[in-house]
């Protein structure tokens, strides 16, 4: 937690609401990016980003500085988006359990590793078919390169659970690519 940020928080709590613009300018785009990845819709993401910052402002007094402001705001963004998605649709994922268990790591690596344009396009298409929870996991780990402990804190999971989920997401990506190839 930066000293500067703590100082700004104290100013806001003392009544200088305008100082909150620092957090809006610094983290606005990052939070929006994360939410867009989860919901897929730009309009919904804008609303949810605004809701996230309004909730953060209301709970600023509760922010104790144990984690970075970025982790804290991401956590609020995640909770806000999950609530929104729960209200609006129910994502259910069905897959063949026997097929799931028979996939080896080598198969996954072989399918996901090539960085050819065609493979990247297939990966992007598969990414869009993942659930919101899976997409946020991929975004945080691969795109933002957050540590496992940070991801665990944002998603309210244990570190081992995050690792298991990341492994499962790779499997899901492999299955989705395979499924698309078969069509």
């Amino acid at each position, binding site marked *: 937690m930066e000293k500067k940020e703590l100082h700004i928080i104290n100013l806001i709590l003392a009544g200088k*609401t*305008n100082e*909150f*613009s620092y957090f*809006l*300018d610094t983290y*606005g*785009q990052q939070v*929006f*990016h994360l939410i*867009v*990845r989860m919901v897929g819709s*730009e309009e919904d*993401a*804008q609303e949810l*980003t*605004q809701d996230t*910052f*309004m909730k953060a*402002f*209301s709970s600023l007094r509760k922010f104790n500085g144990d984690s970075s402001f970025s982790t804290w705001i991401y956590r609020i963004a995640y909770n806000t988006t999950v609530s929104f998605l729960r209200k609006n649709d129910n994502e259910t994922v069905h897959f063949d359990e026997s097929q799931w268990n028979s996939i080896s790591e080598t198969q996954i*690596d072989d399918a*996901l*590793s*090539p*960085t050819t344009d065609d*493979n*990247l396009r297939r*990966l*992007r298409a598969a*990414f869009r078919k993942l659930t919101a929870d899976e997409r946020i996991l*991929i*975004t945080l*780990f*691969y*795109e933002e*390169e957050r540590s*496992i402990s940070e991801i665990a804190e944002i998603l309210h999971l244990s570190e081992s659970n995050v*690792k298991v989920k*990341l492994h499962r997401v*790779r499997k899901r*990506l492999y299955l989705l690519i395979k499924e698309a190839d078969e069509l």
Partner: protein
Amino acid sequence: MKTDRNESIRKALETEKVPQLPFNFTSRTLHKIEEMQAERERKSNRLTQILLLITGTLMYVAGIAYFIFSCGDILLNLLQQTAASLTISDNPAIASVVAGLLLLPPLFFLVRRRILKD
């Protein structure tokens, strides 16, 4: 976990176009926050006024109760003596005291209501 085998996932995400927040996002959100803050202050003031009203009413009732409890007998005797000799309307002083006591609570409520509306 971050080995080269994940390079393709990273690249796929990097090359996907992500929309940007509108340029006025900060000012728009700040404006909403200020509105929320003002609304919250208004509600807080209203709550304080309501609590003051309740406290004032309770104090008034408690004062009357204490007065009746401590000098009720004297007051009753006085009223009986007065009633025997003359009616309230015959004595403007007693009439104004009684009228004042009766009118004070509704007046108090009216004034508070006016304040709350403002």
